[in-house]
């Protein structure tokens, strides 16, 4: 049975929480605030505490989650979220401090942030880091603002950003937010950047290149050094989209590959929970020649005390009203501390091992467009099932019936009917074997009785939903029904 909406459980007069009784003498708000600014009507539900707890607990049970099972979403790095990190983020010394408290009273918080900056610099091979951006997309925007500020300062006339056709959709969206035009560069038959195509597009007005390495096909681009040199030759900057950092920690670093700007997704590589879509954190690291442009405020240590400064004049300015998603940063700090230098390298090693193990077996059943060792993820194509009238979407939906989450589908755009699988290091061989068995059974079902796939899922709380009606007559607010 479907869980009713909270509004339909409401009964006037119920209370879910009792405040301390008002202990100051009361005045009439009408004597202090003009009548037209006093609220006349407030529509909100009224429930008891137990009803609220049950409602949200029942809702929670309708979700798939990492704590329940495998979540092989490519490029999302759905790794286990260690429980102790939740405890750390709830220490009163972190959770119960106001962002505008005197600096003397938040020295521990600033010290933690400063240490985290230096760890992330070391892991990426960058010189300075800002922890402010709230998510990867905001990190990208921040990185591009830095790029723009650099070119403005140097009187460079730059209008374009080069992005591989395998890039994340966010990259071009971020570029247009700062007014850069996007130039797509093709992939070569090995899945890397087509160097000839790149050279043909490398004009003096190129501000930079945005790329992830390994790329969204899960493949490491060996030409990265030369790529960086080419971009630098027109005074462009090279931007690393850190979505795929989980593949290379301790093995190689963006800073050593020639990147000038890096953004990280702490909710991917550094295990902070995705929370059903957020909050995340998207720190941005730069080489020393770009440090002056990092967002204000910055954290500095004067030998005695940590200070928050906003002095830097070249700064692109703040992108958030605070120092960042602080409690997300606490979790990432805890994760790095526990794993340490060897642990981080092990993470990448096992992420890559798991992905290759799966790729070798699954390529016998599904088409593998780029057959070479992958890094932390790989992309299959469901195209061969087309002859049975089955699409990748059907495979994805059928996987839900097996109790697995689906891989990322229809991305990257350069692979038809793409299925992008990222196992992460926290899954065991046993889990991977079960998942692969399910994918093999589904391929067999496609041949024998494709209807099973097209009807899937059947075991989930709801089945395939009518997205067309949802978009045509948007019902997005309980209190204002669509016409």
């Amino acid at each position, binding site marked *: 049975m479907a869980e009713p909406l909270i509004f339909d459980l409401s009964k006037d007069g119920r209370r879910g929480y009792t405040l301390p009784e008002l202990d100051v003498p009361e005045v009439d708000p009408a004597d202090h605030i003009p009548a037209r600014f006093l609220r006349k009507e407030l529509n909100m539900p009224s429930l008891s505490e137990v009803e609220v707890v049950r409602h949200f607990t029942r809702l929670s049970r309708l979700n798939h989650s990492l704590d329940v099972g495998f979540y092989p979403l490519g490029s999302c790095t759905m790794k286990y979220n260690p429980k102790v990190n939740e405890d750390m983020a709830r220490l009163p010394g972190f959770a119960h401090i106001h962002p505008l408290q005197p600096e003397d009273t938040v020295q521990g918080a600033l010290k933690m942030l400063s240490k985290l900056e230096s760890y992330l610099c070391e892991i990426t091979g960058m010189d300075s880091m800002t922890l402010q951006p709230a998510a990867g997309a905001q990190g990208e925007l921040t990185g591009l603002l830095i790029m723009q500020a650099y070119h403005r300062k140097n009187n460079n006339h730059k209008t374009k950003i080069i992005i591989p056709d395998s890039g994340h959709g966010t990259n071009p969206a971020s570029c247009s937010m700062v007014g850069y035009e996007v130039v797509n560069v093709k992939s070569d038959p090995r899945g890397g950047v087509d160097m000839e195509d790149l050279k043909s597009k490398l004009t003096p007005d190129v501000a930079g290149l945005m790329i992830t390495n390994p790329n969204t096909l899960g493949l490491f681009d060996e030409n990265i050094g030369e790529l960086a040199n080419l971009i630098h030759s027109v005074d462009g900057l090279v931007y690393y989209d850190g979505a795929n950092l989980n593949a290379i920690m301790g093995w190689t670093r963006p800073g050593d590959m020639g990147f000038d700007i890096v953004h990280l997704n702490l909710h991917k590589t550094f295990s902070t929970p995705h929370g059903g879509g957020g*909050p995340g954190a998207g720190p941005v690291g730069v080489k020393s020649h770009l440090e002056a442009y990092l967002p204000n405020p910055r954290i500095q240590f004067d030998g005695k005390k940590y200070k928050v400064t906003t002095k830097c004049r070249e700064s692109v300015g703040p992108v958030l009203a605070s120092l960042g998603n602080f409690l997300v940063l606490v979790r990432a700090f805890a994760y790095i501390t526990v794993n340490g230098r060897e642990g981080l390298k092990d993470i990448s090693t096992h992420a890559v091992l798991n992905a290759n193990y799966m790729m070798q077996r699954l390529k016998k059943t599904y088409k593998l467009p780029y057959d070479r060792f992958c890094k932390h993820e790989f992309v299959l194509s469901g195209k061969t099932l087309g002859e049975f009238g089955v699409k990748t979407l059907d495979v994805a939906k059928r996987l839900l019936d097996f109790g697995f989450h689906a891989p990322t589908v229809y991305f990257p755009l350069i692979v038809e009917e793409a299925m992008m699988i990222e196992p992460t290091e926290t899954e065991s061989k046993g889990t991977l074997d079960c998942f692969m068995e399910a994918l093999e059974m589904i391929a067999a079902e496609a041949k024998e009785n494709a209807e099973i796939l097209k009807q899937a899922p059947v075991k989930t709380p709801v089945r395939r939903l009518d997205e067309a009606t949802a978009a045509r007559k948007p019902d997005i607010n309980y209190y204002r029904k669509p016409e």
Partner: protein
Amino acid sequence: MANYIPNTPDEVQEMLKAIGVKTVDDLFAEIPPELKLQSELNIPAGVSEVEMARELKALARENTTVDEAVCFLGGGAYDHIVPAVIDHILLRGDFFTAYTPYQPEVSQGTLQAIYEYQSLISSLTGMDQSNASMYEGASATAEAINMATAQTRRKRVLVMQTVNPEYRRVINSLCQTMGTEIVSVPFEDGTIDPGKVGELINKETAAIVIQYPNFFGTIEDIERISAMAHENGALAIVIANPIALGLLEAPGNLGADIVTGEGQPLGIPLSFGGPYLGFLAANKPLLRRMPGRIVGRTVDIDGKTGFVLTLQAREQHIRREKASSNICSNQALMALNATIYMSLMGKDGIKEVAGQSFQKAHYLKRELAEIKGLSFPFTGSFFNELVIKFPNARKILGKMAKQGIFAGIPLDNYFSGLKDHVLVAVTEKRSKGEIDRYVDMLGGLING
């Protein structure tokens, strides 16, 4: 060291064999040798869970919490009561370890909660629709401005100087690069004179941005100023404190086209600034300009009610360089936090939180009025935050902090002309005893 990697050495060998390589190094062979890291990362070795916790607890202890000191700080983040229920639900792995609801059939919990969130925010702000949430208040305001410039195809935006200075900085960094011209409207007596808006607004103006109550706590005449925006074909963007809306009229009923702001007061811990919750609600003509995610109610193929991400074609992963915003997440868990808070407090609870905050702030003002040497520089109506002025403010604030009271925010941080001006916030969490102690201590220090 703790270990979140399950594979045993034997399993690793089996897997390598299945792949057809001897060692894991073979899987990294295509990284050119000159790019390979030659030594270990220069960060400490891993430690056990308990050792890590010891280090973090020591760092946490170096901070003074608002449980230890009494907090009268506001300026965009407020020390409200957070009911215990919220965190217990947030700690359910089914919520916090789930991803974005891309497969709606196995994400109905997250999706329905967001639909409820959207409805509650729409109701609180008096608007037609809300999105699924944004990062926090300042960047949400910048997104609201981008909506307005896209909708009106105009570039000039009037931002009231009484908008939170941190927000104005973020607006400058995020909007000017889009070619938006930000015009600052100066304040008088801690509030915006509609006449000043009249002087600066014109037919090229895309939007006015005003805060309600404003940064100084004063209640602006958003009704009149919104009307002035509309007369010029511009949109009215109101940054609202959601708790204040338990007492104050909904901006949607006073002419707002977009209502945005910081959702932290809705049961989110202070958290040293984040993660918080940006909310953004608008009226129907702006539906397709809304950034971020939106959840809609629909039915499945069996006719059963269900929820999906909808209007996704606006979003970055489809529109790419033509998208209206690059945002690709929301703050789902913080939106859930606010949804649980609003459900638990309910209609009467939200009104009471707002009412008590109002009452206690006004009690503080009455008591402070007795202190010689302390004045109230601004005269407008206020909700739960006000500006006071006294000599040697910074020094006295420092002394009070040492004696366990975070007494306010010195405003010369943001306005060079406001030396010795202090912004003080009072919530329902403050007791009469704490307020009396504040007044005694401050009076003693000013006249001592």
